[in-house]
């Protein structure tokens, strides 16, 4: 089997160690003997996304995020939407998550138009509302996800999207409604850094399996890995927050 990962704008959207997610996906495939290839899809690239089985984009700084948003209007955005509509697997963190929404409304100045993959809206209320910073624990399908969030924007979910999980500790989408992240078809948006996947091996494998099932059919089953160290790091966060 072979998994091809499309890493969107790795040069511009590269904050907070999010590349740890790529490292994690690659290693967990390699350790199982699954071939894996990472295609870097930078702005100038004319690579077609349909050659990827899993799309990833990390968080970026405001300036870089604007450049990407502007560029995506020229066709790449439409291609990403199509990829997701057809059931392609995508993981979008923080700034990338916001960018996949309908819009980002800053405290001052014009809206930053998003791709509309997720039916979500993000608002920045200015300096009076503090940034959402800290360790997070989310309930995802009855299991926990742990990570670190750091965002000024607050995201609100529309009707055509489900939350990724519910907040156990931390702020999540907006620190009001207890939701964290968003899911639409096989696209996942979240505010969790950490990096997210290494400490949440169940979620990493869930994404790998989804992508391989898309490609090779529903019979795909992943070999079990020894995840003692992964759970040790996961549980250390839970313990730190008094949840274990």
């Amino acid at each position, binding site marked *: 089997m072979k998994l091809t990962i499309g890493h969107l704008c790795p040069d511009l959207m590269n904050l907070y160690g*999010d590349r740890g997610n790529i490292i994690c996906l690659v290693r967990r495939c390699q350790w199982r003997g699954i071939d894996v290839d990472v295609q870097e899809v930078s702005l100038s690239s004319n690579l077609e996304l349909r050659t990827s089985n899993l799309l990833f984009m990390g968080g970026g700084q405001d300036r870089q995020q604007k450049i990407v948003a502007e560029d995506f209007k020229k066709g790449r955005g439409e291609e990403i939407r199509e990829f997701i509509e057809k059931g392609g697997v995508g993981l979008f963190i923080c700034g990338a998550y916001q960018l996949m929404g309908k819009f980002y409304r800053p405290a001052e100045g014009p809206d930053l138009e998003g791709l509309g993959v997720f039916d979500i809206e993000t608002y920045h209320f200015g300096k009076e509302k503090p940034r959402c910073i800290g360790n997070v624990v989310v309930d995802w399908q009855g299991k926990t996800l742990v990570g*670190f969030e*750091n965002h000024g924007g607050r995201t609100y979910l529309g009707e055509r999207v489900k939350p990724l999980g519910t907040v156990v500790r931390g702020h999540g989408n907006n620190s009001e409604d207890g939701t964290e992240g968003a899911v639409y078809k096989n696209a996942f948006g979240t505010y969790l850094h950490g990096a997210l996947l290494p400490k949440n091996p169940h979620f990493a494998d869930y994404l790998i399996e989804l992508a391989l099932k898309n490609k090779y059919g529903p019979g795909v089953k992943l070999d079990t890995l020894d995840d003692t*160290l992964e759970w040790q790091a996961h549980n250390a966060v839970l313990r730190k927050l008094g949840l274990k």
Partner: protein
Amino acid sequence: MDKYLLPIIWLAKLISFICKALRLGTGSTWAGHVALTLYPTILRCLEDDLVHGSILITGTNGKTTTVKMLVSILEKDGRSVVFNPTGANLLNGITSALIANVAFWGRPHSEMGVFEIDEASFPLALKMYDPEAVVVLNLFRDQLDRYGEIDLTAEKIHQALKGLSKGSVVVLNANNDYVNRLGKNLSAKVLYFDVCSCEPLARPSVYLSRFKIDGFDFETPLGGSYTIENALAAITVARSLGVGYEAMQEALRNFRPAFGRQEEFEIGGKRVKILLSKNPEGFNQNVKMLQSLETIETLLLVLNDNIPDGRDVSWIWDTSPASLLKLSRLIIVSGLRAEDMILRLKYSQREYQISNIQYQKNLKKALRLGLDETSKGSTLYIMPTYSAMLEVRKILTGRKIL
């Protein structure tokens, strides 16, 4: 001097005295804090009294070492210099240092000041006064939960530099993209330092750097390419102040590392070398430097997530630690977030091989283990984050483990 200033200096000195008497280690900045609150322009007043003004050094990495290098050079040249102790690099720390520098009736002991300042506080300081010279060493991603995005930091620093008058000197690192761009549209005189303009005279090593600049040979007992950058920054400032090359050469040759920055201890015939590694750039630079060794017997990594370290440990995924696993016979991992660091090591290799990694969350026990596993005459290398470095030093200098 304003009649209210002196009583405030006395009050601040009293606070400082009490902090010292009560051994409040963190108290070294309280005096400055109180003085700044009661008398917001005190920093400018005290700086004005320095006959030869002051120099401000900022940047993500290398501030402490560069301040120490420049101070050593200036002192070798016969000048008396006041500087802020490591860790006290906000406005309150500089103010505390200046208050400690004045005599009872307000006259300063030293003729000039050299201060390190946090990159976020740097623009605030320039709003208060115009230094003789400022140095921006480098700007790298560091603790986004504390400093925010690097673009924004660079922009604020640029705005502040634009406000400097013609008489000031701005010293910039030509090899750091963010810093290089800061030289545009300034009224102040801009001097660049550039590692590419200096000729290395020795192979990279952990214990020594030798290089030639302006036709003069320099040598300093620190390793890593960043050491040469820090030295060049200090040399550039010293040169602009008219210091002779001989004083610079001698000061750098006899340089003693700053607190936790390649600082070395000897314990029972074994050496301990502390390489502060607080962000991806610093961590990777240290990894690069350690690669000049054939092998490492024992290495201790300590990852904390206290406020001075940044609460977010995501940054470790921007480091490249793979070669440490190949070089080291034993890697001990400790600290509040040791589990994250172990995971980073595990995922750095294709074939995962973690038999040379040992997990010891308790730092004291980790140090004990590290020393036990180090043979006589050999070195235990330690790469700690900031608060971890302070803890390591406290344990080692307190000799608590012996």
